């Protein structure tokens, strides 16, 4: 047995990957099905002189990690639907004040308290539009523990690169399932460290003046430069401003730095896509069932393919547009009333050829569920 192979829950994989990526501060509030993340970090973080703190609610949790991130920590919080709803206010603040952080939402059935111990993928739109105001967001997901490890590290890297919150949109199946994961050696996966200003103490330093490439080299809060951070529209000093030119410039900066980099941010996997005429599009746990069907049908010579999206926001429209151009049918497989399916329809020439295969009852969507929908699409009866 090698030390680097572990047989653990997805939530624990997330912990291992976060620590690998350099996590030093976690604040959270327990909620099923994400709680194992807090429990494992409560053990692990003090061992590396990091900070674990259980806050009074999810609102306080996201605020605490934002405060800690400002001082230079890599930070994370984890929650599920009801807690994610409470975090929306802080999420908007982190977007506006450009504070790197990773927010894990291990999705469960909703709305409200919903189905606390059952699977769902119904927070896809909330991840993008849960907090108020125009903004861009990065949201990522994974369907296997090995992918989850890499995507979690990616999430931390993107949070640093773009100085923005990144949402890890997991689900109950992946969070609780145990399977093998190989933990890479330190250095095997690239890590992005925080870009800091080269300005020395005493210089008239502009914390919110981005470089030409859009990246923001910020000084750690509490360090050699004193500056202001606010959730209000602000100028390059970080001071509140009502100036329309400043407001417009800031909005463009916040949105463009993410949406203009969709090609760099997009993570996805393809299976049997070269000659596929029926294309399944899926993500997270649902992609496991979708791939099960695709692999079995391929053995019978049927031309099925799968696009598994790992970046959900910004929506990788170029992937759907380019790869689905020749599809006879597209079947979106997800555990909700149809969220990603709308985005797929918006990005293909024939939206009438896009179908949804879903489950909303808290039961994990199975290959049989998908086969049943395929029968209908292929005109083989119900």
């Amino acid at each position, binding site marked *: 047995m090698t030390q680097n192979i572990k047989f653990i829950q997805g939530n624990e994989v997330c912990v291992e990957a976060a620590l690998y990526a350099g996590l030093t*501060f976690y*604040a959270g509030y327990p909620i099923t099905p994400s709680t194992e993340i807090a429990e494992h970090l409560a053990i692990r973080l*003090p*061992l590396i*002189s990091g*900070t674990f*703190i259980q*806050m*009074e*609610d999810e*609102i*306080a*949790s996201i*605020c*605490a*990690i*934002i*405060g*800690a*991130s*400002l*001082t*230079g*920590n890599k*930070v994370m919080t984890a929650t599920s639907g009801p807690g994610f709803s409470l975090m929306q*206010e*802080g999420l908007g*603040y982190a977007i506006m004040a450009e504070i790197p952080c990773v927010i894990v939402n291990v999705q469960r059935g909703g709305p409200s308290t919903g189905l606390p111990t059952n699977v769902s993928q119904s927070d896809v739109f909330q991840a993008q539009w849960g907090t108020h105001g125009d903004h861009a967001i990065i949201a990522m997901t994974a369907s296997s523990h090995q992918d989850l490890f890499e995507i979690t590290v990616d999430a931390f890297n993107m949070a640093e690169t773009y100085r923005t919150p990144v949402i890890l949109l997991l689900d109950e199946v992946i969070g609780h399932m145990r399977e093998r994961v190989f933990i890479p050696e330190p250095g095997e996966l690239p890590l992005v460290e925080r870009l800091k200003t080269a300005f020395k103490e005493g210089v008239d330093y502009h914390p919110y003046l981005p470089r030409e490439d859009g990246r923001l080299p910020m000084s750690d*809060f*509490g360090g*050699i430069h*004193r*500056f*202001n*951070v*606010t*959730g*209000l529209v602000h100028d390059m000093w970080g*001071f*509140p401003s009502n100036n329309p030119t400043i407001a417009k410039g800031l909005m463009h900066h916040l949105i463009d730095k993410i949406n203009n980099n969709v090609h760099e941010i997009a993570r996805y996997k393809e299976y049997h896509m070269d000659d596929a005429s029926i294309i399944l599009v899926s993500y997270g746990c649902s992609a496991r069932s979708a791939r099960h069907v695709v692999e079995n049908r391929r053995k019978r010579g049927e031309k099925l393919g799968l696009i598994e999206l790992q970046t959900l926001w910004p929506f990788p429209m170029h992937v759907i547009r380019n790869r689905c151009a020749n599809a006879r049918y597209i079947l979106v497989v997800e555990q909700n009333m149809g969220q990603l399916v709308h985005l797929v329809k918006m990005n293909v020439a024939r939206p009438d050829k896009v179908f949804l295969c879903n489950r909303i009852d808290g039961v994990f969507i199975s290959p049989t569920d998908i086969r049943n929908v395929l029968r209908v699409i292929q005109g083989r009866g119900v």
Partner: protein
Amino acid sequence: MSVKKFIRERFFPHIWCQGCGHGIVLNAMLRALSALGISKNEIVVVSGIGCSARISGYVDFHTLHTLHGRALAFATGVKMSLPGLNVIVPMGDGDALAIGGNHFIHAARRNIDMTAIVMNNRIYGMTGGQFSPLTGYGMKATTAPYKNIDHDFDIAELSRAAGASYVARTTTYHVQQLTEMIKEAILHDGFSVVEVLSQCPTNFGRRNKMGGAVEMMESYKSLTTPIGSKAKQENPALIERGVFVQRELPEYCSEYNAIIEKLKKGTEK
């Protein structure tokens, strides 16, 4: 004593109304910091939303202007990361005790080393005079046009019960006492609360026929009394000023650090 060096002059004039008490609190806070001789780089000011919260913008420290009610939660993240810095959280009464009430009692319960200066003007001033949890029964506000039927908190008692290890109250009239209390609170190792009765002539005094700023400040003189005074026994309606709580309790960051140190020793063995 010059406190000008602490001010970000570039961002003046401030937004406060004529006669507002908040400028007096700012002044007292800066005098306290000046007297303590703490360098500007060692001071963090975290604030929420409201008139009082604008203090953070005006001072040349590390300043974090956050969300309504959430300042203490942000401050907790900063303090746990940089326990060596002095964290001061100027708050309004609504900010601290309505929307932020939960964060307030939990910060007190943890006894994390920071100073909450609650500037109690008994009203939501910035948004035009809606009642707050400190407005008090029978008073008027734009959202209590007939009379307020909500009872108010006693901030000192609430803080004591929640676990704060330093609790004091004074007013903008008693500026020397205020400065001394802020000094003590900053030096105190644990969660400290300084409640300051601070007049809002525009949105509280005017609507409740209390006169202007001068009359309101005079009332702070006549309606308050030192803790345990004879006057209080004779007239229980008087509001007590002074230090209500000053006790030594384990401080949160130190306790957390002790766990880390213990684990380090454990792994060395």
